[in-house]
């Protein structure tokens, strides 16, 4: 029996994109953080900003490399596994990704070289500028890829001729209805994710009594960002949800486990969606709150799953649970941010043991929340790959299922090995910590030497030096 090429291709895309998104989500925020540190260093001349910038640059380099190598396969999978998708919507999606390459990828990749290896090669202002350009590049990259993704949820600015989507109005394509919401929601999520990691590492160092001045700076910056961005994310998420209700009501119904539109809708706190019997089992719900959240009225109504034929509904269970995971983690971040801000205000941010322990253990929250959010929105669009235009089942390549199975197995093995080791190395770098005084450039050798120090290389030598008697 031939395995199902469609299912395998879907698993492959979900697997590779889930691995990939973790790294950009981290590096978007991290590049902005590093650029901020460098600007602060230039402004204040304080050593610890510089040490922190160098330290996080090493971690950034490792993360960015993993983001790059896990991203290249994504851009080719459109052709290898989803060639019908490429054919049908390539005219619209392709240029958006093309602009991402032209405006962002080259910018990031090129100035990354200067940022990593140019500490002593270029004047300081140019080095800081390079770091800012890398951060800008990551944000521009997010702009285009989220525009392309949003178009798949809320296609606009095109017309269908002979089964193929043709672009008509590029501004309408780029700024399609869900794009502004998705862009703000995701970029904020990326900055949040990095803030939690920064806060967590600061707390970890403080608990161990290491690098106190760097750790305090990290905690202040992390907690401060969280206290502002996490509550904002609630607002952005709410606006995004309203936009989804307008354009993809069936997705919202699945997110809420809302089967039937019989009156003011409750919020289902817990339940087990039963897709066969079209109801939730073991449901715990708060009456009317759903209407308030989604229509901003106590008695508002919105369509339930039963208003859509079963073949137009997404897999309810996945969407329902993934959404809840995201929301719970988002609330946890709001708590972490506000508690941090309160303790900071009371002058106890650095010596409240329970908060330090909690922050230390919270580093993963942003990553999991982002994955849960993406699972919600992407599964919620099913059975379509492009809402209303192309079904996922019709988008797959005419390749043999065995070829897809083989490549899937290879991707799983390689990614698990390579990225597990990569994450281990990030932990190694974090354990080594922001050491070394690199503020004073060492006496330059004769002439203008090429000094492409690998960012991570420094720490390797430092550790070798430490180990040496």
């Amino acid at each position, binding site marked *: 029996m031939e395995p199902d090429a469609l299912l395998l291709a879907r698993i492959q895309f979900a697997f590779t994109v889930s691995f990939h998104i973790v790294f950009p989500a981290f590096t978007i925020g991290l590049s902005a953080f590093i650029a901020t540190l460098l600007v602060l260093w230039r402004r204040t001349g304080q050593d610890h900003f510089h040490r922190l910038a160098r330290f996080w640059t090493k971690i950034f380099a490792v993360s960015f490399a993993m983001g790059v190598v896990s991203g290249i396969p994504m851009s080719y999978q459109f052709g290898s596994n989803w*060639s019908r998708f490429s054919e049908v919507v390539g005219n619209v999606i392709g240029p958006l990704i093309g602009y991402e390459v032209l405006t962002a990828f080259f910018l990031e990749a090129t100035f990354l070289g200067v940022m990593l290896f140019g500490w002593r090669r270029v004047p300081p202002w140019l080095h800081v500028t390079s770091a800012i350009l890398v951060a800008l590049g990551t944000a521009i990259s997010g702009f285009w890829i989220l525009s392309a993704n949003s178009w798949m949820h809320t296609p606009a600015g095109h017309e269908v001729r002979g089964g193929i989507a043709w672009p008509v109005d590029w501004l309408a394509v780029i700024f399609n209805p869900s794009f502004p919401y998705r862009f703000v929601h995701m970029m904020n999520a990326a900055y949040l994710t990095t803030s939690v990691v920064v806060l967590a590492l600061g707390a970890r160092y403080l608990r161990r009594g290491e690098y106190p001045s760097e750790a305090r700076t990290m905690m202040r910056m992390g907690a401060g960002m969280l206290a502002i961005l996490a509550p904002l994310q609630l607002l952005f998420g709410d606006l995004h949800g309203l936009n989804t209700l307008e354009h993809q009501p069936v997705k919202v119904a699945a997110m809420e486990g809302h089967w039937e539109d019989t009156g003011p809708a409750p919020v289902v706190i817990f339940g087990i969606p039963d897709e066969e019997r079209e109801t939730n089992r073991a449901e715990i719900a708060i009456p009317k709150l759903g209407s308030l959240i989604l229509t901003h009225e106590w008695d508002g109504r919105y369509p339930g799953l039963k208003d859509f034929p079963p073949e137009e509904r997404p897999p309810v269970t996945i969407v329902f649970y993934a959404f809840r995971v995201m929301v719970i983690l988002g609330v946890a971040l709001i708590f972490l941010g506000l508690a941090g801000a309160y303790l900071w205000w009371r002058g106890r941010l650095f010596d409240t043991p329970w908060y330090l322990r909690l922050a230390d253990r919270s580093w993963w929250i942003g990553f999991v929340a982002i994955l849960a959010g993406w699972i919600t929105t992407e599964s919620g669009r099913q059975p379509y790959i492009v809402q209303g235009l192309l079904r996922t089942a019709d988008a797959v390549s005419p390749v043999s299922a065995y070829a897809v199975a083989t490549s899937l197995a290879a991707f799983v093995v390689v990614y698990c090995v390579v990225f597990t080791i990569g994450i281990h190395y990030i932990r190694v770098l974090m354990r080594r910590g922001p050491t070394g005084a690199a503020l004073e450039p060492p006496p330059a050798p004769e002439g203008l030497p090429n000094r492409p120090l690998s960012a991570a*290389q420094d720490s390797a030598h430092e550790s070798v030096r430490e180990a040496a008697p």
Partner: protein
Amino acid sequence: MSGVDTPDGLAFWLPLVLACVIAVGVALYVILDGFDLGVGILFPFFREEGERDQMMNSVAPFWDGNETWLVLGGNGLFVAFPLAYSIIMPALYIPLILMLLALVFRGVAFEFRWVAKPRHRKWDIAFATGSMVAGFAQGVMLGGLLDGITVENGRFAGATFDFLTPFSVMCGLGLVVGYALIGACWLIMKTAGPLEQQARRYARPLLLGLLAFIALVSLWTPLEYERIAERWFSFPNLLYLSPVPIVTALLAYSCWRGITGPYTSRAFYSAVGLFIVSFIGLMISVLPYLVPFSVTLWDAAGAPAAQIFILVGIVILMPFILGYTVFVYYTFRGKVRPGEGYH
């Protein structure tokens, strides 16, 4: 262009211009990532850790930018010629996946190797193997494409292993040798001391090897395909195209002198020239086909609106991209000195 239907006006020029842009992008990729893949291919032949550090340092600031041209090439095909993209990618599925996985290993090695020190041997192996497999897979893809793809009703209709022929395997080996040559010439230019001398010793047999592969492809393809033979050997094409082999010979001589003589960068630029001429030669053989010999660039052209939109972007942005690419190469100019970077 006998036997090929060509449209008029914009529908003629737009795909042609974009095909040229993509060709330039692919050529830049092959040259730029060529030398850093080549350095990886040569890695096992340099045994000292210090030498390997220098080799890696000589390409570390550039590799990421170099690889971006690959993304641009793939995306350019996707945007401008979606039909060709949706035929070629499934047809070359196995070597494509192989290449992507190999690029994962060698890409992360750049950073992982330094963190792992002193236990970095596995990343030396990953860097070398990844570079070799990526180069080989790219050559196989080129060969598989030149060999032709089975197309029915605008879709790939062949079998998974159609790409695997003696010819495509030969192209794979040829590209590995070519990358190794350009990598060796890069090391001649960017390093000094024993490392440079060793690179010079390796470059000679590599140059001869690459010339042998170029000769082989130049004989094989016209014998296999009457169309290619006609393109090259009919009159007056023979006359117009005679500069191609002549320039190849001159560049090969120049490269040899660059390797053996007291020159720093001559070998590298000559090797780049060899790559460009070979690339032009291949284009002469297959144009105007994107999928030889079934789909022309006009058959495969996407929506004009998409092509214009991306072309505007390219015209505006490419000068900036080339500008800061040059800036980075200028910033990291000169030789990486022995011993530097690891004390």
